[in-house]
């Protein structure tokens, strides 16, 4: 195919100031034309070499075109836990969720703390020919929180950032050195902020619900303490620092204050912390066990506010697939995490339609902001840019069933629920990595 013509789509790219119904023409992996009726000519001369995609769905819904999404935080489980997910299925899920870039966390088996694994992941990612995979290497060998990894060599091998995600770098001396070393090679350091001494055996957020359910609490302060300390370390070492899955009102306040003082801190929030609270644990639904835990309404409100005012930079899925048996049984024994790649957009569109968040903030936080944090080229809707695009029917409703999901795992509280908003196609470098237009199924 030599050209793709998106005719009369609602193009929406806050970074480029685009918010209008236009044509977008894609040729040789790039956006060659964008503008009102820019594709009329090509569309008027039907050819097998030109694929025309209409701006209206069969149901008459206006289709929206966004810059491709970038996920800073996914667990694709390969190598080591391929029953939960593998690179191929994980990237397919990402593409189905509108993502063109996926940063994958290093808590695989073995841990991605070596150039061999990083290179292997890059290779497997390319072979999948889907969304681009970017490994995040460990900060410390084995994620043990002690000895630093070969950050310079890992970056050369393809690592885009370093994180011990799943575990916190608890020791202040190690975190200080990690920030200094990461800065030396311009590798962002991403912290899983959890003072483990305060979360021993934790099963859910510490509060009124944990008290009633008799579940061991994960107090907010365990996150706040680490974020506060790390912000001071980032200031002291004058280095960049990124907080993964920020979940508390206190941590949002600390980051806001740090930013106002010019400290180079960024942070991300998950779609579930923006839409779900700890009451969901009543009934002991293991799908709701995540780390950090679902918090309270006041945290959720504070996170929405922080996202709206720019304190929170990015929305990241923390896509954490687990098999049914990993999630079976009591909360104490259940694995932590929920899937997110294919559900993130519908969850966020719900917040947009209820007026909680402006669409522009959502799209920026899904695309250009995360790209900037890890130094990727931000997907853009403008002539000359790479064709990294996500086509969305914001009105289409669908039921979250296993057969609808590309992920191998189905651990989400939204299972069997109806959600609104569906990614119809994803283009990466002008290639369809997800395509369910005109009845197509990948």
């Amino acid at each position, binding site marked *: 195919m030599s050209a793709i013509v998106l005719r009369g789509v609602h193009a929406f790219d806050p970074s480029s100031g685009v918010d209008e119904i236009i044509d977008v023409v894609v040729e040789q992996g790039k956006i060659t034309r964008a503008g009102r009726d820019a594709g009329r000519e090509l569309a008027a001369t039907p050819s097998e070499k030109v694929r025309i995609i209409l701006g209206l769905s069969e149901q008459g819904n206006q289709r929206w075109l966004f810059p491709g999404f970038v996920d800073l935080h996914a667990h694709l489980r390969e190598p080591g836990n391929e029953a939960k997910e593998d690179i191929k299925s994980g990237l397919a899920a990402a593409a189905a969720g509108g993502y063109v870039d996926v940063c994958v966390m290093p808590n695989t088996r073995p841990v991605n703390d070596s150039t061999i694994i990083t290179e292997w992941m890059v290779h497997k990612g390319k072979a999948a020919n889907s969304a681009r995979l970017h490994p995040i290497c460990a900060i410390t060998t084995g994620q043990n929180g002690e000895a630093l990894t070969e950050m310079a060599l890992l970056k050369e091998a393809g690592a885009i950032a370093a994180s011990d995600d799943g575990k916190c770098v608890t020791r202040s001396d190690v975190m200080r050195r990690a920030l200094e070393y990461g800065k030396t090679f311009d590798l962002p350091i991403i912290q899983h902020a959890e003072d483990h001494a305060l979360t021993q055996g934790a*099963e859910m957020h*510490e*509060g*009124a*619900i*944990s*008290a*009633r*359910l*008799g*579940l*061991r*609490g994960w*107090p907010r302060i365990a996150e706040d303490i680490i974020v506060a300390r790390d912000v001071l370390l980032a200031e002291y070492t004058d280095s960049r620092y990124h907080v993964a899955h920020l979940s508390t009102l206190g941590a949002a306040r600390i980051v806001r204050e740090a930013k106002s003082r010019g400290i180079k801190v960024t942070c991300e929030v998950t779609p579930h912390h923006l839409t779900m609270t700890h009451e969901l644990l009543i*009934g*002991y639904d293991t799908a709701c066990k995540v780390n950090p835990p679902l918090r309270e309404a006041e945290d959720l409100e504070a996170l929405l506010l922080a996202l709206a005012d720019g304190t929170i930079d990015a929305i990241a899925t923390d896509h954490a697939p687990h098999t049914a*048996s990993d999630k*079976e*049984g*009591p*909360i*104490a*024994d259940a694995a932590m995490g929920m899937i997110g790649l294919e559900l993130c957009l519908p969850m966020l569109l719900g917040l947009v339609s209820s007026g909680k968040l402006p669409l522009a903030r959502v799209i920026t936080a899904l695309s250009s902001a995360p790209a900037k944090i890890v130094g990727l080229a931000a997907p853009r809707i403008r002539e000359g840019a790479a064709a990294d695009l996500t086509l969305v029917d914001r009105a289409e409703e669908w039921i979250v069933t296993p057969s609808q999901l590309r992920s191998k795992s189905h651990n989400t509280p939204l299972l069997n629920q109806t959600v609104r908003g569906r990614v119809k196609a994803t283009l990466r470098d002008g290639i369809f990595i997800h395509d369910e237009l005109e009845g197509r199924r990948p």
Partner: protein
Amino acid sequence: MWTHKHLLGTADIDAARAERFFARAEHYLAFLREGERKSEELRGKVVVHLFFEASTRTRASFEMAAKRLGAEVVNLNPKGSSVSKGESLLDTLKNIEAMRADAIVVRHSASGVPHFLASRSSIPILNAGDGLHEHPTQALLDAFTIRRKRGQIHGLTVAICGDILQSRVARSNALLLGALGAKVRLVAPRTMMPPAAEALGPTVTVHHDLDEGLRDADVVMMLRIQNERFGGAMMGSTREFARTFGLDPGRMGIARPDCLIMHPGPVNWGVELSTRIESLGDRVVILDQVESGVAVRMAALSLLLTSGRAVGDAAVAS
């Protein structure tokens, strides 16, 4: 939760339902005291005791209750069995069901296990204690004991003192006694009190001073201090706990003169309760609780295993 099939917790037991239950327990208490103590009511039924966590008293009490009603009891000790070899809870449940057991009495160190089993079980599940969550038969027997001694529960002030944070007995009692109209005071040092403890029951107040908790109380329920669980992080010493939050006859002066003293057992004598407490005579009702326990568990087993047909109490367990 107390559905028609299972006894999982005390959250949905209201006053009317509790009264019907207590009437039934009263019947069994009389039977235990006066009768030949052997009924055929549950003849042919097999109750499986699935105790993942060690228990002597509760297990014995359930076993006595089942046997007095003519049921057989099979004790499964998951330690050293297939369960400890990684057999899932669900597999264990399905195997017990396949053997045609009639009910399962379960105790587990993880909160929510009875609820998980109940959601997948075709036979009744009785919660004999799950993690830090609930111990419904303990709360029922405590309420039954109070009601027998004081005539009614409504309007009484009950102080529950000790490690509230880690106590399923406190949680079940706070819900049930609150539903029955008692004022519930939870009393503990701050290290042993969960956050938002007021949420534990409809009438709960929180206290960090024993005298404040005891003032004009009608009942004081002391909890076992499980020092082995603390690793030294919850209190300075048991000696210090005894001095600050332990009960002795001298401190009882601040409570009502007829205040009952209860304990779910086993007592750490000299820690939460002074041995001198015996001087208060029949106001100490710890052994009455033990006796009531068998009657209350007979009532629970009977309700769940006979679909509530006996004694006209069908609605009790509905």
